[in-house]
């Protein structure tokens, strides 16, 4: 079934060695002709128009654009939170647009870490329990290892001393760091974040951004929506959206793998 040899853990998002991923995609994230329209009272509204986007493993992509341009809609395609009206969403070995809701939940839980701007943590669970939650739902890692793994993740975001507090006792930036730790719980290859720093002051935002940078260095792929031009600039690659179209892309393939440009034609 898998014709390639995996370099990373057996998380289904293995690095392409020769023949590409299962559906013929050679990039970790491969959006092909993705359109999304919403039925509204005033007729259909098209939020995304025939988007093609390739992101390779290890890339750090910032998605920018005006409010209402379609940024959230775009990344919701990657996480499977929303479904395309037309086109294909191939992520690693998975054709995301073909999954049922149940399959989607399991796939997302294991392979994509999602971070929002607001409301992240369950208020009645402690910080460590919040981090353990994805492992509980997806039944990854043996039950007795979960707490120590969560502690290790909290250590990465420097939140271990708050582990047994409730989220309400943590500041916004601390909560966002916990949310990042939780997004990493099942060791997903991809992190998708919708304005993760939108609610934070610039210093805290900077800390969160550095955390992302480190994750990319460790091999994660990150797609992040931001309104902060400065942060966008510091990401490896910036994709600009306007009216549901990609109108700018600073470095397709340059931020990550060797032969991105070469393979683009095959997309």
């Amino acid at each position, binding site marked *: 079934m898998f014709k390639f040899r995996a370099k990373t853990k057996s998380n289904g998002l293995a690095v392409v060695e020769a023949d590409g991923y299962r559906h013929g995609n050679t990039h970790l994230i491969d959006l092909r002709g993705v359109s999304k329209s919403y039925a509204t009272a005033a007729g259909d509204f098209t939020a995304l128009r025939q988007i093609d986007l390739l992101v390779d493993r290890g890339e750090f992509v910032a998605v920018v654009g005006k409010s209402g341009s379609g940024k959230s809609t775009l990344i*919701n395609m990657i996480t499977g*939170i929303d479904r395309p009206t037309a086109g294909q969403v191939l992520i690693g070995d998975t054709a995301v647009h073909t999954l049922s809701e*149940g399959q989607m*939940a399991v796939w997302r*839980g294991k392979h994509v870490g999602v971070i*929002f701007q607001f409301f992240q943590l369950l208020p*009645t669970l402690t910080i460590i329990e919040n981090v*353990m939650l994805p492992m509980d*739902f997806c039944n990854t890692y043996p039950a007795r290892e979960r707490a120590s793994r969560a502690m290790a993740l909290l250590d990465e975001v420097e939140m271990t001393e708050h582990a047994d507090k409730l989220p*309400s006792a943590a500041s916004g930036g601390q909560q966002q760091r916990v949310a990042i730790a939780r997004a990493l719980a099942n060791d997903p290859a991809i992190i998708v974040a919708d304005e993760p720093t939108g609610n934070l002051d610039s210093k805290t935002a900077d800390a969160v951004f550095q955390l992302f940078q480190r994750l990319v260095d460790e091999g994660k792929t990150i797609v992040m929506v931001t309104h902060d031009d400065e942060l966008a600039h510091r990401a490896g690659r910036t994709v600009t959206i306007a009216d549901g179209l990609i109108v700018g892309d600073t470095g397709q393939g340059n931020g990550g793998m060797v032969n991105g440009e070469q393979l683009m034609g095959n997309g």
Partner: protein
Amino acid sequence: MNDRTIKRTLLPPRWAKVLRDLWEHKTRTLLVVLSIAVGVFAVGMIASTQQLLSRQLMDSYLGVNPGNAVVATTPFDDELLKSVQRMPEVEDAAARLSVITRASLGPGRWRDLTLFALPDYENIAINLVRPESGPWPPPRNAVLVERNSLPLLEAGIGDTIVVELPDGRQRELVLAGTAHDINLPPARFTNQAFGYVTFDTTERWGFPRQYTSLSITVAENKDDAEHIQQVTDQVKDKLQSGGRTVSFTWVPTPGKHPADEILPAIFLLLGALGLLSLLLSGFLVVNTVSAILAQQVRQIGVMKTVGARSNQLIGIYLGTVLIFGLLSLLVAVPLGVLAAYAFTDFLAQILNFDVVYEGIPLRALGLQVLVGLLVPLLAALWPVISGARITIREAISSYGLGKGRFGHGPFDHLLLRMQRWLPFMSRPLIISLRNTFRRKGRLALTMLTLTLGGAIFIAVLSVQVSLGRTLDDAVAANNYDVFIGFDRSYRQDVLLDEARMVAGVAVVETWGGGGVRRVRPQGGVSDDIRLQAPPSDTQMVRPTLLQGRWLLPDDENAVVLTSNVLEDEPDIALGDTIRLRSGDKENDWVVVGVTQSLQEQPTAYVNQAHYARLEGGAGRANFLRVLAGSEDPAEHKRIAADLEAHFEGRGYQVGQIGTMSENLEAVEYQFGILVALLLVMTVLMALVGGLGLMGTMSINVIERTREIGVMRAIGAATGSIMQIIVVEGVLIGLISWLQAALLSLPLAKLLADQVGNAFVDAPLSFGFSTAGVGLWLGIVVLLAAVASFLPARTASRLTVREVLAYE
């Protein structure tokens, strides 16, 4: 919650969440749990009582080796008894002598007392009688009273009582102690007492050492009523060929205590009410669970984002509901068992048997666990499934101030317009009005709970009124205060003249009457039917007719039956000709009417003139009915005593004498029990309704915490916030009250008909409890005020900061 550190649990995080959410909303959890508990308690109490009672009653009943049949005859001796015992079809036979006496309770007051003489108190083969207190067997000239009858005799152990024998002689008996006989009807139900004496005593009174009733057990097929009837007929033939006249035979349902006929109806009625209250508590579960899901919609979104499948979420929320159920069982099961023990004791006392508790009624307990878990789960199923299916996009995009929409639909427009018409309405009142109708689904369920609860409340109270009215009708139907029966017939004009000499007697009538049995076309005879022959112009019987008509002056062989005759003889229809046997005469009668009966004896009314001719005594009568000038029961007793003294002083043989009010005591007693049971259920119903309203109000307030904060932030005083919430609650209460009042009318009629059919063989004389409507208004307004005041107070105490931080 605060920023204290929480002890780490070994629970998986999702179950930790379930428990903490329940704990965080303690009040809500408590209300739901209590509401389910009330329903489970009601069902459990009734199911357990039924289980305990039927087993215990059965054990006690079978423990006395009950006879399969009873045969009543003219006196027979040991030899005949032995020949019956020798019959191969008969396993065993026991005989006793019955002497029908009446015991004096004081001047002119008598209580029917049937005395049984048994040949050997140490060896009772069938229908065991057990010693309770005093010597055993009863000494000479002493009586052991059946323990259930003791209160009826108004005497204590050691007292001497005076009994009057059938021929009018009076004898003294020492009340030496009590005995227990489960086979007799509850004394208070019939106002009839029973006692045990020895043949030594009856022989001294002049009765030969002979028996008048025979109980048998059959040798085989003890459960086969038909077989028992056949054997009984053979026994009867044997007695008759021995020269005895068999007056009646009776085959009770094999293995069943006679009370088993009425108990299922009681349990059905109470059980149905219990289930209904459980159903109502299900509505609060629906409301609460929907509210939890609505409140946690973003949490659901987050959980889904980190990989939770819909099924896992359904598991989490149904788990929450399961915990509601389990907690409610914790409350309801022990209370239910205790209540069942008390209820069983209460019924056992009435039915006259001793309860021996061994363990817990497991089957009923199983039922409780089943309904306690299943009903909430079923109620929650739809809200949980639809709530867990929400997509992440829907979940994380839906926020803002409060939920529930106002401003759509015709009703909302009406409310909006109302403000223009009624400009004097205060702003808080307008907000209350709008809030009330914001969550229409929830409102509908709360309304339904309160409406049904209220309607049942009023209906049950109406049944009480109807029972009272039925009793009143019975009094009106028997429009006389004192009755006298003579042992033989006398000339009517003489009886009337004598009676009028007694002070206080206003109106007198002479009646004919006696005991008859119906000769069934398919063979056999019915139980005793009381035949009453009033004069054609009688003022003293005005029964409520259910079918046909009352007797006309020139009716000859027309008969009007009470409805309980038809209950026993279901093949009789209006217009049929039936044959009645009186002594050794048989006559045919045409049924022209059916009247409502209380639990009095089955009765047949015929015209006096015709009856007297049939009996060969034209112009003679053996009964007197007297209407007193006063309504006072004590005065009636006095008149009865004076009448008796007067007639006996002149040599008349008075057989029975009594007052109507005393006769009704037994019926009043039975109705009283019924009403008490129904009232318990009513209270439970009101409780479920109140909890439902309180639950909904606290949900409403919790949901609007943020909104309340905003109102405070813009300067709303605590008072106005409280006012808004309390007015909303009271408004819900008032609307539900109106609906309940409307619904209760048909419901009350239905319930009264059913109760009547089950307990007095005819629909009750319907009366609607307007007092119940008023009472429910008071209760519902009070409940609503309290139910909304408590959450309102909590809400109005929140600081703006707390409220805005509220998630």
